[in-house]
């Protein structure tokens, strides 16, 4: 019961924010935080099966490019392009997963590293007419809803986009939490803890890893599609290997494997960075790296485990 009151309170707070602050900048940052939360959730979904995917930004890029190309070149509606982009991303990840998830840990990481580089090279040099080459695609239209004369919402307004992002963040969390609580989710956790053991009781880890990867990448595609239509410009560089480091920090800080971990991590770090640290340049990025190393070394379950750690320490004499 308490839990639902807390969720309700949090949701009403999120709903009320645009009424509290009129500053466009704040709403803009909040939208970006929401998009990053969805992305961090997708990264976490892959970490949940025990693999670090350095190509997760590349998958976000696939979602962004797929959605943009469908809207700008095929003139589909955003509302059709977005789910299709999610599907495209997931299907690509399925293929990549089949090829690479046979290789554990190091090899998977190397492969995803290469894949991220390959995507950047492909998008920069091939199909320039379609993907726009190195300068990328610009003037990506904002979504809108028109149903007769009744509903007329134009998402070029930041506040409208904010509500769209909040809705999709909630959707992402609900879906991933349902997965996490299901039998499949339990198998994912078991694979992360010991894939040999899971294999020994007759469960094909390969099948579940590919499934976990595909589910995670659905939301990488979603975050990419949202990002493209929110910012309005996408370039191959936006999704290059270095853009996955900050999201890794979000997940690690929040807590790997916990559905709410990346939500908390992304929110805390992005609020810190956008409202307090912006002027520090490289020092801000340095801080991200230091935070990743320190958290993984001293608090591997992230700040979400802090209250529990504190309590267990207090109980000891």
């Amino acid at each position, binding site marked *: 019961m308490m839990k639902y009151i807390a969720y309700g309170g949090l949701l009403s707070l999120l709903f009320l924010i645009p009424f509290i602050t009129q500053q466009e900048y704040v709403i803009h940052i909040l939208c970006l935080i929401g998009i990053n939360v969805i992305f961090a959730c997708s990264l976490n979904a892959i970490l949940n099966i025990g693999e670090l995917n350095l190509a997760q930004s590349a998958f976000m890029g696939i979602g962004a490019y797929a959605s943009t190309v469908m809207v700008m070149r095929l003139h589909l509606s955003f509302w059709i392009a977005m789910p299709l982009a999610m599907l495209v991303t997931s299907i690509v990840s399925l293929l990549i997963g089949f090829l690479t998830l046979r290789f554990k*840990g190091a090899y998977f990481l190397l492969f995803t590293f290469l894949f991220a580089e390959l995507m950047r*090279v*492909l998008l*920069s040099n091939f199909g320039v007419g379609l993907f726009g080459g190195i300068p990328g695609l610009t003037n990506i239209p904002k979504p809108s809803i028109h149903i007769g004369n009744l509903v007329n919402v134009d998402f070029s307004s930041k506040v409208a986009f904010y509500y769209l992002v909040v809705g999709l963040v909630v959707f992402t969390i609900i879906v991933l939490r349902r997965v996490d609580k299901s039998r499949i989710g339990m198998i994912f956790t078991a694979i992360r803890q010991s894939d040999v053991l899971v294999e020994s009781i007759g469960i094909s880890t390969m099948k579940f890893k590919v499934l976990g990867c595909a589910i995670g990448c659905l939301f990488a595609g979603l975050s990419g599609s949202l990002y493209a239509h929110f910012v309005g410009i996408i370039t191959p560089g936006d999704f290059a290997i270095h853009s996955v480091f900050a999201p890794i920090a979000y997940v690690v800080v929040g807590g790997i494997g916990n559905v709410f971990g990346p939500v908390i991590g992304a929110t805390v770090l992005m609020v810190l960075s956008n409202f307090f640290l912006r002027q520090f340049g490289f*020092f801000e990025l340095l801080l991200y790296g*230091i935070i990743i190393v320190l958290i993984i070394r001293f608090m591997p379950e992230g700040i979400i485990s802090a209250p529990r750690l504190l309590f267990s320490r207090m109980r000891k004499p």
Partner: protein
Amino acid sequence: MDATLLAQGALNGIMLGISYALVALGLSLIFGIMRIVNFAHGEMFMLGGYITYYLFGVYGVNYFATLVIAVLIIGLLGMILEKAIFRPLTNRPEAALTSLIAAVGLAWVFQMLAMIFFGEQDKDIPTVFKGIIRFGGMMITWERFAAILIGIGLVLLLNLFLLKTKFGKAIRAVAEDKEAAALQGIQVARISSLSFGIGTGLAAAAGAIIAPIFIVSPSMGGEVILKAFLVVILGGMGSIPGAMLGGLVLGFLESYGGLFFSVPVMSVMTFTLIILILIVRPQGLLGRE
């Protein structure tokens, strides 16, 4: 396409291959002992380059002294990182994943530190060995020839160390079977510290050798780690002859590929080749199951 150009390509390929092999050897050594993929390994290469820039380029210290100092400093840094960060992680559950994340974080930290303290601009190191060797119709600068010689020397030295000395034998024993080695009275903790130091030292040496030929920049580590990974995939994780072979294959591919194809085409071809090798021989060309 005449023979001179082909021979020239071969020399360049050997030089690139040896430097990639040096970085990959360190990576492979650390993996063999600790089962850790040190993603920050490229940054050790980068720091080796910067030490050479400052000691040799700016303060005019003797080049060979610089090389030794770079290896010692970065070797020590590696041992500190091993003790402070990696060893505690390997004793915990989910060690592979957490140590991977820690290494990625460290790579990020060193790259940003280099940006802050050394500046974003590329730095040029003055030529160490001046002059050109003519041989038949082809030419090679002394600088590149010396890089090949020093690289080969270091690989031979490492091989000798691993095969003949007590520490080298202990390293191989730990790589083979940690428990059995410990039962023989080998101190596993000391050996992992030592191999981490040797591994990072090798990367620094590669940096010190390559930096005067090309340029030094904070992002050079990220580029070289990609190459080292490719070498390790090609040659097989944990195999020294594999790393040498992989390095040479990649060096030749780049050197000749550069003559015939554009950079994007090369990237796509390399990637396809790696996928094929991984599918046919997941343990690498010379790696064991």
